C-alpha cells in the first residue's frame, strides 16, 4: 500500500444509499488519481441530524467508534466525502479536547478514541499539491466553456473554529479545483448559504424557498450547473426542482453535480461510470456537450 496516497475512508450512509452516485464517482475518481481509499470495516452512522438532535452523547459516541475503527487501520488520515459526516467528525474531535468529555465519549464508544487523526473532507484531499499535479497530468477532457457555480453548503466550512477548512465565508478550494480543470467559475452569492438541510420532511415549503433561492442565484449568474460537495445539498437542489416549479417559486432545469462527477469526467470517465444518469433533474450530456480538445500534458 502506498501510504502517502492511502486514506481511511468513511463513506457514510448517503454514499451507499441516496447518494450512491456520489459514492460511485468518488471511488472511480480516486482510482484514476491513484488515491487509495480503505473503507472502514463495520463503520456505523456518523451521528448526523437524527442522533445529535436527540442525544449529543450518542452522536459523539457514534463518531468515537468510527474514529476507533479509523485508528485501527494504521493510517493517519480519514477522508470523508459527505459534508455532514465531516462536520460530525470534526465536532467530535473538537469535543475530545476536553478530558472529561473525552472520557464520556470513550465510555460510549467502548474504548480509547484517537484524538490526533487527521480528518479531511475529500475536497481538501483534492487541494493537495501532489494531487493537483496528477489532476493536471491525467486530465483528458477540458471543461473549457462550462460555467459552473461552486456550492460548498453550510457544513463544510463552519463553524470555522471546528471545521478548520477553507475560509468560512468565501471558500476557494472548489473554485480553484474547477478553474484548474478549465471551467469558468461564476461569482454568485450562494456559495455557503443553507439549502434547507434536513427540513424537507417537516417544512418542505421552507426548503423550496431556500433551495429555490440558490437555483435563482445560480441561474442569474449564468451558471450551466451547480457543483456541490454535500449529498444533502445535492438532494435538495436536484430533487426539489419540480416541487419548486409547482409551488410557483421559479422554473429551473439546472443540473446539479457532485464535484467528483465533474472531476471524474475531466479525467476521462464516462457518465455511466460516474452515475450521472441518476439525477432527477437531467444532467446527462451537459458535460459532454461542449467537449473540447482532449488535453494531455507532458
Amino acid at each position, binding site marked *: 500500500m502506498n501510504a502517502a496516497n492511502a486514506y481511511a475512508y468513511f463513506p457514510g450512509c448517503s454514499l451507499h444509499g441516496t447518494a450512491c452516485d456520489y459514492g460511485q464517482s468518488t471511488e472511480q475518481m480516486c482510482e484514476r488519481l491513484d488515491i487509495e481509499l480503505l473503507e472502514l470495516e463495520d463503520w456505523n452512522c456518523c451521528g448526523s441530524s437524527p442522533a445529535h438532535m436527540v442525544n449529543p452523547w450518542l452522536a459523539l459516541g457514534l463518531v468515537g467508534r468510527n474514529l476507533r475503527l479509523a485508528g485501527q487501520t494504521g493510517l493517519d488520515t480519514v477522508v470523508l466525502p459527505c459534508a455532514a459526516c465531516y462536520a460530525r467528525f470534526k465536532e467530535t474531535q473538537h469535543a475530545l479536547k476536553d478530558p472529561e468529555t473525552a472520557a464520556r465519549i470513550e465510555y460510549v464508544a467502548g474504548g480509547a478514541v484517537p484524538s490526533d487523526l487527521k480528518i479531511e473532507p475529500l475536497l481538501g484531499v483534492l487541494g493537495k499539491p501532489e494531487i493537483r499535479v496528477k489532476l493536471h497530468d491525467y486530465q483528458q477532457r477540458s471543461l473549457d466553456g462550462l460555467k459552473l457555480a461552486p456550492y460548498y453548503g453550510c457544513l463544510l466550512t463552519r463553524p470555522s473554529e471546528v471545521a478548520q477548512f477553507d*475560509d468560512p465565508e*468565501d471558500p476557494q478550494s472548489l473554485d480553484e479545483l474547477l478553474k484548474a480543470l478549465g471551467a469558468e467559475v461564476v461569482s454568485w*452569492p450562494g456559495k455557503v*448559504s443553507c439549502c434547507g438541510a434536513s427540513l424537507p420532511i417537516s417544512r418542505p415549503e421552507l426548503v423550496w424557498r431556500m433551495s429555490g433561492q440558490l437555483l435563482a442565484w445560480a441561474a*442569474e449568474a449564468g451558471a450551466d450547473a451547480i457543483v456541490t460537495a454535500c449529498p444533502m445539498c445535492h438532494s435538495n437542489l436536484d430533487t426539489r426542482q419540480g416541487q419548486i416549479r409547482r409551488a410557483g417559486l421559479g422554473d429551473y432545469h439546472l443540473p446539479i453535480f457532485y464535484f467528483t462527477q465533474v472531476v471524474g469526467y475531466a479525467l476521462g470517465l464516462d457518465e455511466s461510470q460516474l452515475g450521472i444518469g441518476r439525477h432527477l433533474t437531467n444532467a446527462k450530456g451537459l458535460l459532454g456537450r461542449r467537449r473540447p480538445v482532449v488535453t494531455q500534458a507532458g
Partner: protein
Amino acid sequence: MARIGVFVCHCGSNIAANVDCAAVAAAANQMPGVVYATDYKYMCSEPGQKLIQDTIREHRLDRVVVASCSPRMHEPTFRRAVAAAGVNPYQMEMANLREHCSWVHNDRPLATAKAIEIVGMLVAKVGRDEALRPGRAELTKRLLVIGGGIAGIQAALDVANAGYQVTLVERTPTIGGKMAMLDKTFPTLDCSACILTPLMVDVAQHPNIELRSYSEVEQVQGFVGNFKVTIRQKARYVNHATCTGCGTCWGKCPEKAIPSEFDQGLGKRTSIYIPFPQAIPNKPVIDPDHCRYLGYRSAYEEQVASLGLTGEEAAKYKPVGPDGKKMPPCQICQKMCPTGAIDWTQKDELIEQEFGAIIVANGFDLFMLDGSHEAETGQPVHPYYGEYGYGKYPDVITALQLERLMNASGPTGGEIIRPSDGKHPHSVVFIACVGSRDDKVGRPYCSRICCMYTAKQAIMLKEHAPETDAYVFYMDVRAGGRSYDEFVRRAQEVYGTHYLRGRVSRIYRKGDRYVVMGYDANIGRSVSVETDLVVLANGATSARGSVDLMQTLGISYDQYGFINEAHVKLRPVETNTAGIYLAGCSAGPKDIPDTVAQASAAAAKVCGLFARPYIETEPTVAEVDQRKCVSCHLCEEVCPYSAVTFVTLRDGRLAAQINPAVCKGCGLCVSGCRGRAIFLHGFSDQQLLAEVDSLLAPPLTLRLPELVPVD
C-alpha cells in the same frame, strides 16, 4: 520598643462584607508592640486620615499598619498622612485585606482569620522598618513626544508653550497622522486640513520644538527625569538643511506609479516624495525600496561581489535587473536639484538624547480585512470577512479610502468615483463595525469613531451629490458625545440616509453593480440592496509596531497592543512607569476631541513634573555591603536596569556599587548575591523573616471575639 498603631478599613462594604473588621482590630490590639488598633469605614477619606493622625499624636505612635487595600493606589496617600503627623512614611505598612482577602473569599470566619494573619505579618514587619528618606536626582527638563499625529502635535505645542524643550519623533516623513488624511471632521464638519495644518506649521516653527520626522525610538534607558533615548534617524538621502522643498525632484522622478500610502493606495507617488502638499517638513525623502538609483547601487554591489570583479572591470560593470535588462543608474533628482541637496551617502543615524519625560502618542491603524494588521503581532495572518469580498471587488473600499476620495487634495481632487470604472456612484452602502465588537475577528471592543465618521461620510456624500442613495448597516449607533446624536439624526432625517439595523451576510457582483445582502432587524427580515460602492467602517487597532514600542519603553499594554493606563479613572494619561505619559489612540480608540483633551492633560502632567526642582527617588533600593562583596559580578548580570558598577576600594579590592537613582528595588541582585552582601532597604531579611515567623508561629494565642454575621 516600637509603638505600633493598626487601622482597619471597611472600604465601605468591600472588606466589611467578608471580614469582621472590628474583630481584626481587636485581635491586632493583642499583637506585640501594638498600642492602639481600631477600625473605620473609609480610612482613605479625610476623617479616616484625620483619625490616623490624631491617634498618632495621642498615643505617640511611631509605626503604623493600615489594613485596607492594595498599596498600588493608596500607599502614597497613607504615606503622606502619617508623614504629616510625624511618622516616617517608610515606617507605615499596608496590609491588603481587600484584593488579597475579602474579594477572593466568601467564608466570613475564615476570611477574618486570614485577615488577622495578614495584619500580624505586617505588624511583625513594621516593627523592624527603618526610617528611610527619599533621595534626589537631577531632572532633565526636556520632553520626548513619540508620534506626530494630532495627539503628539497638541502635547508638544502645550509643553513647548510652557517654556520647556520638546523633541517630537515621527515615524513617517510627515507629521499630521491620520487626521491629515481626513476631509471633514464630525460633528461640526470643520475642514480637517484647516484646523490641523496651522498646528503642524506651529510645530515646525516653534523655537522650543525639535522635529524629528522619519525617525523611530530605538532604545530607552533610565528613569523619570533621566531617560536616555536612542533615536534612529532613517536615511532620507536628501539633505534637509540645504533642500528648499522646491519640488523639482519629485516632478522629474521617473518612478511615478508607486501606490501612495497617504492616499490609501488610491493615488500614486514618486520614489522621491512628500506624502501630501501640506506635509511638514515640506521636504522630500527617497523611498529606498522604489528608487531606481538605490536599486541600481545595491544590485551593483551585490553582483560585483558575487562575480568577484575588481578594478576596472568592476568600475565598468553594469548591473542587471530581475527582468534581465541592464539597470538604469537614474539619479535624475540629483541632476535637477538646484541646491545639490541629494545625498546618496546618507545612512541611518543613531542619535542619543536625554529627556525628563516621555509622552507616547503613537496612534492607531485600521483593522484590515486581509489580516495585514496582525503581521507584527505574531498572530497568524488570514483574511477576515470573506463575505464582503474586500480585495476581490474593487468597489468595496475602506472608510479611509472614501475619505481620500472626498478630500479636495486627494487623488481625485474631491470627486467621489468608483475605483473600478471611475463612474460616480448613484448608491453607496456603508457597513459599520467591521473589525469592531466582533469576537470572531479578535476585536471585541468598540472602536468608538466609526458610527460618527460613517454618519459624517453619509452627509458628505449627499453634500457632494444630493441624489445619491446612502444606506448604513449598523449594529447600534453609538453617538455619545456632545452634539453627536443630533449629528447622526441629521444624517438620517435631513439627509435621508437609510439606516438598516443588522449585519451584512454577503456582497456579490451583479453586472457592474453589487448586491449587499443583510438582515434588517427592525422589520425582521433579510434585505438586499443593489449598489455601486460599498464602504467598510474599519475599526481601529493598535498602531503597527506598537507592541515593540511598548516593550522598548517598558510600559504595560493589553492584549490588543494598547497601553494600560496607570489607573483607568484617576490616572488616565499616565502609564505604569513614572515619567512616561500617554495621549490619544495609543491607549484605545478615541475621537479627535478626546485625543486633544488627553494630549493637553498629558502635557499638564509633564509641566507639573518639570516645575519641580529635582526628582525624589524611592529609598527602597539595594545597597552593597562592600566588606562582604567578592566581586563575582552576578548582580551586574541579573540587574535589569544596569544599576550596578564596580569600584576599586582603598585596599585595592574591586566591589560592586549600586546607583540608587537607577535601582528600582526589584531585589534580583539581593537573591542572586552569593555572599549575601546586598541589602534591600525596606525589605531586609529580618523584616521578611519576621513576617514569615509571625505566620508560622503566632506570638500569642489570639482569642477571637465572637464573630457577628452581617445581615
